């Protein structure tokens, strides 16, 4: 029997992996993929909670609806971020974030 806690553990694990990737990876592409992982962790959390609410409530499908929104926005965001990374590579021949420090003091 799958409980709500299982969803939460899976979600937290995915989120932690994503966060680690964002902080530790040097390649902008991998950072982008890690961000997607974090988004998916949130989606798992949402569907998990949605599956366990009372289905007689009028807002029972809200979790699923939001997940669809998240997927759409993630797709748009990915397209945008991929374009930025492509431009970055074109101009600097590298996607290593260590070398990108124009905002430094």
């Amino acid at each position, binding site marked *: 029997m799958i409980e709500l806690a299982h969803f939460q553990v899976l979600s937290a694990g995915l989120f932690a992996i994503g966060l680690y990737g964002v902080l530790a990876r040097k390649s902008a592409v991998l950072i982008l993929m890690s961000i997607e992982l974090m988004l998916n962790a949130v989606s798992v959390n949402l569907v998990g909670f949605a599956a366990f609410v009372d289905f007689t409530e009028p807002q029972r499908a809200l979790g699923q609806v939001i997940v669809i929104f998240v997927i759409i926005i993630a797709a748009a965001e990915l397209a945008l971020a991929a374009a930025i990374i492509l431009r970055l590579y074109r101009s600097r021949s590298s996607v290593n974030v260590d070398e990108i420090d124009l905002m430094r*003091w």
Partner: protein
Amino acid sequence: MPFGETIGTEWAWVIPALSAAAFFLTVIFGRFLPRQGAYIPVAAIFLGFVLFWYVLRDLLTSGPASFDITWISLGDTRIAWGVNVDRLSVTMLGLVTFVALLVQVYSLGYMKGEPRQGWYFAAHALSAAAMLALVLADNLLFLYIAWALVGLGSYLLIGFWYERREAAEAAKKAFITTRIGDVGLLIGIILLFESTGSFDISTIFHVAQSGGISQGTITVAAVLLFLGAMGKSAQFPFHVWLPDAVEGPAPVSALIHSATMVAAGVFLVARMLPLFELAPGVMLLVAGVGLFTFVFAGTLALVMTDLKRALAYSTISHLGLMMLSLGAFGLGAAIFHLVAHGVSKAMLFLGAGSVTRVTGKTEIWDMGGLRRRMPVTAITFVIGGAALAGIPPLSGFFSRDAIMLAVMDNRGPAFLVVALAAAALSALYMARIVLVVFFGPLKADNEHAHESPLVMTVPLVLLAFTALTVGFIALPWGASYQGFGDFLADEGGFHFEVWLTALTLALALAGVAAGWLTYRTGHISHGQIARRYSGLYRVLVNECYVDDLYQWVVDHVVLAAGNFVALYDRVVINDTGVDGSALTVMLSALRLRHVQTGHLYNYGLAMSLGVVGLVLVWWLVLA
């Protein structure tokens, strides 16, 4: 005249509006017109003078009236542009339009060929418009605006020849000195507004007379209003600007010494007299300041050797006489003297301008015998001098007699004795000026002198005619006109004390006779007198060192205080307050900027730790 029937007191506002419009028209379009548009202000003031007669006729048939339009509404407080057409304001309308018209006509001749004369006439229009608005104003805020514009107009006119340093300095001095008094006036107006909730003059009187304002407030407000009047009317100790103001063109002096600037102060006290009468102490102050100025300026007028400067001190002296009259409850007498003096003094300054323009001299001892070369100027000058000296039946005789009567009735013998002595003095200095300038032998370098053109002599003759005849408005003409005092202020019919009139007349004649013996026949040597009292003479010639005292105060008190304030500003406000805080921010920023590493993962880590920190706080502390 069917058209004229429709023109009445409600047209009074048009009189200043015409001159105000003339000001803008001359400034904007003057350069395209012949003589730079000088004829526009003359035409405007002429129309104003014509309208004055219609307004006067309607006033006499229908009585006083007032009209206003709302300017600002603040809750229950309503501030209006309003005109108050009563006997006082219409009298002033007549004086101002008449004198301003003749002065402007005279200027057409006097300023002929002057560059920038369009601006000169525009400034004349501005002055006239402001003064006309001032006398019509029915509320203190409107009056104050007009008051300030009168000051501006005089500043522009006195400083018209601003290329000359003396003229520019004199204009500044006139403006600043009168502004000092104006501060008092403004505070007084605010005080009255605060305690009555209205700027409207009649409302203020009503509230004050029904006990709506405390006695202390009335006294303070009256003193402050009088301070403004002292500045504008050149009462001691604010008199210093007026003698310097003769640096302007002569017609300008004629205007500001009679109809505009200095008349404004006397008019203000006259207009607010019901308020002043509620504060007996202030009335005594008005009388005292007036009396002192009357005597003080009279003695200085006796020793001035510059023609226009001597006339200027004579003006100050006569303004003191008007203030004395107001302080002695003699409203009718004061305004009558304002009119009589205004006409005579305008004529004297125009005559002085005529003399100076022809001979190129300003010192009276360089003139002499000019009556042979300039008969019209000389005759009119003698009439003006005699009018101011109080020789009957000229205007000054009637007005001075009325003032002396008021002083005797309401201020007692001490005031009367001093005033009579000063009256003799004013006859003496007038005789001195007239005799030295126009009589005696003609100086060799004045042989070429000649009479001024008609455009200048006609205003002189008209003013002389008025000075000769205007005195008769003091007399009762019938049942409906019981003399000027009754017309203006319901003071009862014309009357006089035979012994007082005889004494005044005898003193005036004695003054003239002393002048004749001194400056005509030489029986009395003024040089010997000056030598015997050389200390006193030196003090008088130096104008009692009032200017030097003010200069000392400015140098040692005002500038010293200013230096201290400047130091405080530099050290505390600027170096510590402004530069100090900027320096602190910069130094902290130099240390804190190392936080900005530019590395993405540093920012990400900080953000994550921040979120964890917030959750911990929420969980441990708030939940």
